[in-house]
């Protein structure tokens, strides 16, 4: 077996191990949580017998270790169990909101990274000017503001007062889309998408912007940039092809990792903008003690994070020919 495939295999094995440990931790966190999971679903009309039926239905009457083994066995088969609350397979429930989370995430990342990267280049270019100082301060502001606060302000301004954008949800009332594609390209959906994406992007763009800026400054000190200048290349070309291209490498991997983080759903934004996404689902599930669902949503975002971390590594070594791989990092 070659060195390369050995590396990839060991990384994959490590990912599986990581996920298994996370799954185990999760399982026990939820089982040890005070409160009977089904208590929230009990009605005054329930008899003891009915409560027992309910427990049996979700396998909660079995000993803990057996529940754990069943859970693992199911997990291996990609089965996440049934949601207590929705009485439906967790996978199905999650599928119901996952596309929306993805759209919100991708859209906000596109905005954030476009603005961030360009802004970072601009700030680095205009270094030591008032423009840079103001730019940095403004960026730090955006990165320091609590998201729900920004969200509420955005909502009040653009929706309630200016009436430019709808104030919640993911699509116009009563509209049915024939396909995800049609939905994605419909104006109404994009209009709904805009405010939450904007709010998320306002926060997200700080990282690529600052990262880009300082990478740019680093790269601009590298001698190949100096040499490019000696070669009489135009300033634009130097900035974009030399400085920005090279400075963007870490930003790209930061983005991969960031996507991993964001798939956990941006709970707060989804709450403020009534966005039907994974984050809100997860919070609802946690506060409704819907273990199965919470676990499922959690595992899924953990899996995405682990995978995106891996992707980031691979991406980095793909983008930067200098990186070697081997033991450790």
């Amino acid at each position, binding site marked *: 077996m070659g060195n390369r495939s050995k590396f990839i295999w060991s990384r994959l094995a490590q990912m599986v191990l990581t996920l298994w440990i996370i799954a185990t931790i999760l399982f026990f966190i939820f089982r040890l949580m*005070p409160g009977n999971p089904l208590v929230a679903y009990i009605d005054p009309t329930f008899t003891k017998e009915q409560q027992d039926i309910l427990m049996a239905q979700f396998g909660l009457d079995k000993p803990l270790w057996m529940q754990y083994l069943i859970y693992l066995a199911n997990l291996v088969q990609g089965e996440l169990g049934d949601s207590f609350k929705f009485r439906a397979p967790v996978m199905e429930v999650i599928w119901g909101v996952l596309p929306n989370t993805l759209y919100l995430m991708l859209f906000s990342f596109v905005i954030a990274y476009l603005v961030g990267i360009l802004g970072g280049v601009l700030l680095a270019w205009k270094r030591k000017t008032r423009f840079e100082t103001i730019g940095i301060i403004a960026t730090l502001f955006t990165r320091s503001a609590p998201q729900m606060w920004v969200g509420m302000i955005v909502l009040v301004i653009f929706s309630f007062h200016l009436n430019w954008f709808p104030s919640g949800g993911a699509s116009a009332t009563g509209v049915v889309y024939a396909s995800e594609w049609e939905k994605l390209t419909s104006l109404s959906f994009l209009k709904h998408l805009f405010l939450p994406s904007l709010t998320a992007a306002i926060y997200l763009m700080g990282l690529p912007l600052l990262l880009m800026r300082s990478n740019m400054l680093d790269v601009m000190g590298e001698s190949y940039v100096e040499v490019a200048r000696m070669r009489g290349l135009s300033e634009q070309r130097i900035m974009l092809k030399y400085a920005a291209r090279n400075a963007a490498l870490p930003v790209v991997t930061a983005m991969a990792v960031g996507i991993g983080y964001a798939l956990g759903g941006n709970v707060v934004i989804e709450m403020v903008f009534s966005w039907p996404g994974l984050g809100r689902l997860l919070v609802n599930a946690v506060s409704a003690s819907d273990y199965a669902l919470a676990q499922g949503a959690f595992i899924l975002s953990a899996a995405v994070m682990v995978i995106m971390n891996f992707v980031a590594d691979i991406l980095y070594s793909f983008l930067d020919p200098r990186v070697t791989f081997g033991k450790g990092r």
Partner: protein
Amino acid sequence: SETQTQPKSTDTPKTEPADAKSREIRTLQILSRPQASAPDEYERANLIAGAMKELGINAEIKAMPYEQQSDIVWYKRDEWDMTGWQMAARPERLDPDEFVYNLFHSSTAKDGYNFIGYNNPEYDKIAEQQRITVDREERKNLIFKAQELIASDVAYLFNVHPKLKYVYNHQVFDPNSVVEMAGMGIRNIWTYLNAAPIGQQKNMILNSNDSVQALNPFYISGAFDSWVTELIWDRLMRIDKDGLPKPWAAESVTWKTDTLIEIKLRANMKWHDGKPVTAEDVKFSYEAPLTGEVPMYKPFVEIIDKIDIKDPLTLEFTLKRPWAAFETASLSKLNLVPKHIWGPIIEDLKNKPENAESYQEKTPIGSGPFKYENWKFKEEVVLSANTEHFSPPKIEKWIMREIPNTEASLGMIENGEINFLAVFPGDGQLLQQKVEASPNLTMVTTTDLGFQFFAMNHRRPPFNDVAFRRALAAAVDRDMMAQVVYKGFAEPGDSVISPALPIWKNPSLPYPSGGVEEAKKILQEAGYEWDAAGKLLYPAGKKEELGK
């Protein structure tokens, strides 16, 4: 300024009993949901703790999520002192049986809903009696008596019946066509059926603040699910706006005896898939819960001995024993489901661990006034009018949008994104201001059928003492609660029955009142004393057994 929680200097005796130390009442714990999720409950807890402090009782509020709170209350029945709790409005609760029997009968004290451990043999008898008393006047007397007992025993520390606040857009709907229902407000099926659009907008768009979990005629899940299911599936009877059941899918309901009921179905009813509704379907709907595949509905049909089909439109229900709430709790509760769809499903489920509660139809089929059109998970449910129904709605579509952000829902009713504000957990005063400022909006408030209260654990001293409970009840200023916490959008409560239901509500109950002074008097009479620091002590001979 004066503070709410500062203890007043009490006129307690200067001399202190010798055994004061051992008679000191421990710090009592009040469980509440956190302020963030249930601000009203938390603030009421604050007010109660304040009142207790004035009586010389130390109280401590422990905020915890609802699940933890109910876990303690429900499964650790002798480990808590007091807890905030509430009973929500539901159509079948318009019949007093559920509240009167399930909440206080001693048989439910062990693992049923009588988690406070109320035990009064006299009350048990009345509760049982009212169940089987079909005669309304006679039953009313019993319910009145039951309320009296609960009030004088102070089974619960009643707080308020909140006012339901609904807003609709009167540019969209004819105000005369909006129907107010006792204890339920204007957000009810009669409004949905009756509301007459007067402009371009033919759809009713209302909000919910939590998810629709399932659209399943056999699964009693979240409140919002039931808003939808009752529109898709018909029932034999429906609770009318006065709170009493009236025949619906049944043309007539005739009590042949106390245990024999004849049902005549309406002719020409059709399922949404075009098949006719038959007596077989009705029989199936009532028998399916007994198969074990529909556990939640079992309590409502267990009473039925047998169902006979007399002719294609006539059925006879034979009950095991009389049950006064049968019309409300069973005939108006069970959804009529098509046998040709659910029959095979239930058969199939018998061999599987799951039951009918976890079965989701792709397109739910009922016979109700609205047809299922679309459900976008965590977003909206769209129903369209069933024009072939015997009582066709006037609106074209009924759309419920999920908007967890209260602030946003307020903005949306203002800017027309929704035209019916069906839930508003926020500040009523603000809502009123907004409505008054808007040319389009009308607000209708109705006293809730449900109520807010604090439960006291009768198993634990000092709550096992009626006098103590009465003193607490007297000390808590319920008017103040309604004013401060609800900004006037609540009515002080003294019973499980809402003043919104004059038929059942006993207007003169011996529930203690009179403030702190009165409370002290009650305590003194019962032998309670205060130490030099003004702390309340058990009556002589009683000791604190539960420790600090």
